[in-house]
C-alpha cells in the first residue's frame, strides 16, 4: 500500500534523506531503527508534510496517491496518520471538540458518513478505556498539562478514532515507562488488521518486544542499509549499529 521510492529530503538546505526506498504491504508492520541523526524523524515529518521538511526528489505513494503533492490534511484524508514524537499543546481546545472536528473532517473527505453525536461519544469513551484514560480526560485541553505518557496515549486514542490506513509512529516509545509502553503497544496491536499498515520508527529495540514487526530496516545516513525480520532488531540491540555500517561500507 505504501511505496517510498528514492526519497530525498533536506532540512535547512542540508540533505538528510539520500535515496530511501521502502515498501509496506497491507497488514504489515515495519520497524525502522537507526542511530541518532540517521534521518528517522525526518522521514516521518516528510511523509506528514511538516513545513520546513522538503522532499527534493523521489516519491511517497499511498495506494497510488502521491502524498508529496498534498497538503498535510489531505494526506490525512488519504489515510496517513502520524503519531508525533513530541505532541504539542493546544491550550483551551478540548480533546472532545478537537476529536469531533477531526473525525468529521476525515469522514467528509473520505466520503464516509460521520457518526452522529451519541455514536461519536460512545466511540470516544471506548477509545479512552482502551488506552486506559479516564473519560474526563476528553474535557481537558489537547495535551494541556499532560504528562509524557498521557500525551503518547492521546496519540494512540486519536489513531483509534481516525481509523487510518497507514500509521507512522515516530519514537512513540521514547520517554515511556513499561506500563505506559504496554498500554501504547496494546492500542497499536488492537489496530493491526489485514488492511492497515504500520511504520514504527524507534531508537530502542524494547518497543519491538511489544509490537512485533514483520520487517526491520536499518536507517543510516539517510538510506536504508539493511533489512531483515524481527530477529534483526535483537541483533542490533546486542551489537549496536556499527557492524552494519561497516558491513555496508
Amino acid at each position: 500500500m505504501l511505496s517510498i521510492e528514492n526519497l530525498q529530503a533536506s532540512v535547512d538546505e542540508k540533505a538528510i534523506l539520500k535515496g530511501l526506498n521502502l515498501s509496506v504491504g497491507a497488514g504489515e508492520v515495519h520497524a525502522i531503527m537507526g542511530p541518532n541523526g540517521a534521518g528517522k524523524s525526518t522521514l516521518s515529518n516528510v511523509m506528514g508534510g511538516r513545513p520546513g521538511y522538503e522532499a527534493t526528489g523521489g516519491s511517497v505513494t499511498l495506494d497510488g496517491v502521491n502524498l508529496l503533492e498534498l497538503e498535510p490534511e489531505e494526506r490525512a484524508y488519504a489515510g496517513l496518520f502520524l503519531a508525533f514524537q513530541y505532541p504539542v499543546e493546544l491550550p483551551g481546545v478540548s480533546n472532545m471538540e478537537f476529536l469531533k472536528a477531526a473525525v468529521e473532517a476525515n469522514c467528509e473527505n473520505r466520503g464516509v458518513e460521520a457518526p452522529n453525536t451519541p455514536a461519536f461519544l460512545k466511540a470516544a469513551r471506548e477509545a479512552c478505556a482502551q488506552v486506559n484514560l479516564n473519560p474526563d480526560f476528553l474535557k481537558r485541553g489537547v495535551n494541556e498539562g499532560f504528562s509524557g505518557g498521557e500525551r503518547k496515549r492521546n496519540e494512540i486514542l486519536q489513531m483509534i478514532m481516525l481509523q487510518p490506513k497507514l500509521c507512522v509512529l515516530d519514537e512513540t516509545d521514547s520517554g515511556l515507562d513499561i506500563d505506559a509502553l504496554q498500554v501504547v503497544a496494546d492500542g497499536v496491536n488492537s489496530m493491526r488488521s489485514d488492511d492497515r499498515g504500520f511504520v514504527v520508527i524507534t531508537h530502542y529495540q524494547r518497543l519491538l518486544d511489544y509490537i512485533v514487526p514483520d520487517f526491520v530496516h536499518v536507517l543510516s545516513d539517510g538510506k536504508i542499509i539493511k533489512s531483515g525480520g524481527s530477529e534483526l532488531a535483537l541483533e542490533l540491540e546486542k551489537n549496536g549499529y556499527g557492524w552494519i555500517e561497516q558491513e555496508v561500507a
Partner: protein
Amino acid sequence: MSESVERINERLASDYEAGFVTDVENDSLPPGLDEDTVRAISARKNEPEWLLEWRLKAFAKWKTLTEPEWAHVSYQKIDFQALSYYSAPKGQGDGPKSLDEVDPEILRTYEKLGIPLHEQKRLAGVVAVDVVFDSVSIHTTFKDKLAEAGVIFCPISEAVKDHPELVKKYLGTVVPISDNFYACLNSAVFSDGSFVFIPKGVTCPMELSTYFRINAMNTGQFERTLIIAEEGASVSYLEGCTAPMRDENQLHAAVVELIALDDAKIKYSTVQNWYMGDEEGRGGVYNFVTKRGLCKGRNSHISWTQVETGSAITWKYPSVVLRGDNSIGEFYSVALTRGRQQADTGTKMIHMGKNTRSTIISKGISAARSENCYRGLVRVAPTAEGARNFTQCDSLLIGDTCGAHTFPYIESRNNSAVIEHEASTSKVSDDQLFLCQQRGLDPEKAVSMIVNGFCKEVFRELPMEFAVEAGKLLEISLEGSVG
C-alpha cells in the same frame, strides 16, 4: 513568517456579512454641530426643559475640551461639523407603538442579521430585545412580560417621558458630563439607547438585549444606556452592534452607565461587530465609547464581558468604581483585530470600598496589519482596606506585521491590598497548525479552533446562547483566512 500564516493574513480580510445598506427614507438633521443642533435633537424628541438644559451644559463644556491623544491609535481627525447628529427612519421619530408600524424594510434588515423582532420567533421568553436603528429605538420586545415583574426596559427617550424621576436621579451620576471628550459630546447630542430599571429584590426574568445598527451615511451614533439595579436585584444584559460597509468613517460615541445598589448584580455583555473598514483601512466605524459601572452598594457586583471584533478604531475601557464594601468588579474581554484595525481597550478598576475585589481577564488577538492594545488601570484608594485584584492579559499574534501591546497601570495606596498582574504573549505556532492538519483539519479550522481555545476563559462568562454566537463570530472573522 511561515507560509501558512501568510495565507491566514492574506485572506483575513473577510467578508462582512452585516455590511449591507437598508434602503429607507430618513428624517435627518443636516451635518453640523452648534447649540441649535442640540436644541433640534431635544425638540425632535419632545424632551422636557431640564434635559435640554443638561444637554446645553454638556455642549458648552465640550467646546472647551480637546480630543484625547494618548491612545495607541492613529487616524485622521474627525470633522465634527461634517457629521449629522440625528437620523431616524421616516415616521419612526416618536418611536413606533407596535411592530405593524415599523417599516417592513427595517424588519427585513433585522431578519437578515438574525434578530427577528417578532416575539414568537424568538425562543419563548428567553431574551427581550430593544432595537436601535441609527438615532432611534425601533422596537422593544417582551415589554409586557417584563412589566409584570416590575422591570422597566424601554428606549431611554421613552423613560425620559414615563419615568423622569428615575432618569433625573441617575443620568450622569456615573459618567459625569465633563468626564471626557466623547462622553461630553454624547451628553450633548445623545439620541437614544436603552433604559433598564430592576426594582428591589427582583431577578430579571429574562436576558435583556439591545441591538444597535448604524445605517445612514455620515451619521454619528450617540446612544446612551442607563441600567439601574436596586437592592438585591439582578440582570443580565447584552448588546450587539453592526453597520453597513461604507467608505467613510462612521462615529459611534456611546455612554453606558450602570448602577448597582446593595447586593445587586449587573452583568453586561457586548458583542461588537461594527464595520471595520476595508483592507486598506478605508471606512469603518470609530468606536469611542465610555462605559462605567458604579458598585454603589455593599456586596454589589458588576461584570463586563466583551467580544470585540469590529470597528476601524476602538477606544473603550468599561470600568467599575467599587465604592460599596465587599463589592466585586469583573472585566472579561476578547479583542480580535485584523486588516488595519486599531484597538486600544481595557478597563479601570477603582477600589474605594473595603474588601473590594476585581478580576480582569483580557485576551487580545492581532493579525494582519492591525494594532491591539490593552490599557488598564487598577487603583486602590487609601480607604480600600483588604482590596484584591487579579489581572491576566494574554496576547496572541498571527503574523509579524501586527502589534500587541500591554499598558497596565497599577496604583496602590493601601498596604493591605494585594494586586497581581500577569501578561504573556504567544503565537499560533507552526507545530500546533501541523498537528491539527495531520489530524485532518484545514488550517482555517485549525486557527479558529486554537483562537477559540485561547479565548475560552472569556466565552465562559457570556450568557450561554451568546457564547455560541461569539464563537461563531470569531470563526467568521477568521474565515477565509487560510488557503
